[in-house]
């Protein structure tokens, strides 16, 4: 149960209710649907269907249903996963969940920012991709620009995401799918072997196990709309519909666009064209429309920016609620007139800038990156394990609470859905510890200890902060004019 003694002091400003079904769905689509996944997954040929099914059954469906039930049940509480996990496990559980979601971003930001910069370079001049000054400049423009959009509140950021996700994720996906269909219908050679059911079964062995964690978290971000509960017009009816719409768009675009690429580009060439834009260039050249490469690079860059925006704004809003409830010092509890947690956004941007600086200017970060990216996976697994555990626990601790959307099947149903999700993320956590990089035995030990230690260090601060917490922190948080 939640800790009633630490009930939040109500915000002076009530956030405007600006979000409807479409806007909520687009927040999730922005967070999850990414063109950069397609060529990498297309390397698996027909097997990509099997991998996507694993990710869908063990993660996308459970998380969508869990998000719909928890968001509608707790629609009067801000903070997304923080509110859900706090309701089930108290402040410690909620704080750890939101802190893990926030801190894993700090590892991920440099890579998505580098993706944005290198994709844009493809539209301007590919040679820029190896220029550190160019990379860092574009990364910072994207990062601070997105932070500025978040500053202007839900109304501005949701419009940005609505238009951005259509331009940068949905339109490019539909274009790739359409061109794949045209390729197939035009009688051109489909490079995949003839379809058979046995071809979609993924190869599961020791070498592909680490990939399992990647597949499970392929759809991470479906909880993102939950951070915007207080700005939603009719949460009890809009959330389930938004979850369903976003899940269908994400699944359909991802599977069909991946297959379209796999139809046209041989697996060998895909491995050669490791980058998204190299694959897109090959794809458009094969289709006889090389002039479409640069515009597509611009669209995919926009898609990268809206994905960044979704992950930058959601967890920061959650941490803002933590600060508002007095679990962080008042200095973190600064909300502007647009309802944005300005101090959390500012601190996040400063830390992200520092980490990006290291990422771009340190010589070779290959092995360090593998450890950091493994920590991202582990931290996310902790978040989602807490979400699925909250889903199950609240059916016992709050059985009579109104649930406008309720996962069917009663207690067995909740155990089935929550259990599948929990199984997926626990398994992903374990296999996420297995190194796939070029490590010696000594380095492997260093890797596993490093990942576990790093994950622990990035997950545990909330427990220290709650120890340091003072009653005055609730009272002295202030608002900007």
């Amino acid at each position: 149960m939640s800790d009633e003694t630490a009930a939040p002091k109500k915000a002076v400003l009530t956030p405007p209710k600006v979000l409807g079904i479409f806007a909520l769905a687009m927040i999730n689509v922005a967070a999850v649907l990414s063109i950069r996944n397609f060529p990498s997954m297309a390397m698996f040929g027909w097997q990509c269907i099997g991998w996507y099914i694993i990710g869908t059954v063990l993660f996308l469906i459970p998380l969508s249903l869990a998000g719909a039930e928890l968001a509608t049940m707790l629609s009067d509480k801000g903070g997304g996963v923080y509110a859900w996990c706090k309701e089930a496990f108290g402040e410690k559980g909620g704080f750890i969940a939101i802190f893990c979601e926030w801190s894993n971003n700090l590892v991920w930001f440099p890579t998505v920012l580098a993706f944005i910069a290198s994709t844009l370079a493809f539209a301007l001049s590919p040679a820029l991709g190896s220029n550190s000054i160019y990379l860092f400049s574009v990364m910072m423009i994207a990062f601070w620009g997105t932070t500025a959009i978040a500053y202007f509140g839900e109304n501005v950021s949701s419009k940005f995401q609505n238009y951005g996700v259509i331009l940068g994720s949905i339109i490019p996906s539909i274009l790739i799918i359409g061109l794949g269909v045209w390729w197939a219908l035009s009688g051109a050679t489909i490079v995949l072997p003839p379809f058979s059911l046995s071809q979609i079964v993924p190869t599961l062995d020791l070498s592909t196990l680490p990939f399992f964690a990647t597949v499970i978290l392929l759809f991470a971000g479906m909880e993102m709309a939950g951070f915007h509960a207080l700005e939603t017009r009719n949460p009890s009816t809009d959330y389930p519909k938004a979850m369903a719409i976003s899940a269908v768009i994400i699944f359909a675009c991802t599977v069909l666009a991946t297959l379209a690429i796999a139809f046209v580009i041989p697996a060998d060439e895909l491995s050669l064209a490791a980058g998204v834009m190299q694959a897109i260039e090959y794809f458009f050249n094969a289709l006889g429309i090389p002039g479409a490469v640069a515009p597509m690079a611009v669209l995919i860059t926009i898609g990268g920016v809206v994905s960044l925006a979704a992950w930058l704004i959601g967890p920061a809003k959650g941490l803002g609620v933590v600060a508002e409830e007095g679990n962080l010092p008042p200095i973190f509890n600064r909300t502007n007139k647009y309802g944005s947690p300005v101090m959390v956004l500012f601190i996040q941007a400063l830390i992200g800038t520092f980490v990006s600086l290291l990422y771009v200017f340190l010589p070779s970060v290959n092995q360090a990156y593998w450890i950091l990216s493994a920590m991202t996976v582990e931290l996310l697994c902790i978040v989602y394990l807490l979400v699925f555990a909250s889903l199950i626990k609240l059916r016992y601790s709050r059985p009579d609470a109104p649930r406008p959307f309720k996962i069917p099947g009663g207690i067995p149903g909740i155990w089935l859905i929550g259990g599948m999700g929990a199984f997926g993320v626990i398994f992903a956590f374990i296999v996420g510890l297995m190194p796939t990089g070029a490590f010696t035995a000594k380095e492997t030990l260093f890797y596993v200890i490093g990942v576990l230690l790093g994950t622990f260090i990035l997950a545990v601060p909330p427990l220290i902060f709650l120890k340091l917490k003072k009653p005055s922190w609730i009272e002295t948080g202030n608002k900007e004019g």
Partner: protein
Amino acid sequence: MTEIDKETWAVILILLLVILVPFGALMFLTNPEPYHATSANLLREAAGSAGLKVVRDFNATLRVAGATGGHSYTVEDKNGNFFTIFTQSFDSAESRDAAIKAHNAQSVGKGRPIGELIVVGDQLIYIHPTSETIRGTILPELNKKKSGIKP
């Protein structure tokens, strides 16, 4: 302006320590792979030493800055399984490292990039995700190449 008490300073310090120290330490402690010229047949030689047979090899150069040429190899193990390995040489440590970062930026979802990237001197060796079962066979040979050639 709110007065900053010692607990607030403690929270700020912890935030800085827990986030910046691991990042900084990891990035400074791991050594960059030295850049040096390697044999154009590096992979073919390593495959031969590992008992793998190269059955197909075609030239392939990535359209990225500093890429000077590479190969796409299809190799066969003793059990008749086929694997794809791709190599790419670079004209400088900077262009090689930029390519590593570009590869790392191609992560799937919030996870990691697919496939494995091995750095040997001026070459990047990419092992296709469905070919990772031969990692244990060819990796020791590639590591010998790393230690055998000084910058």
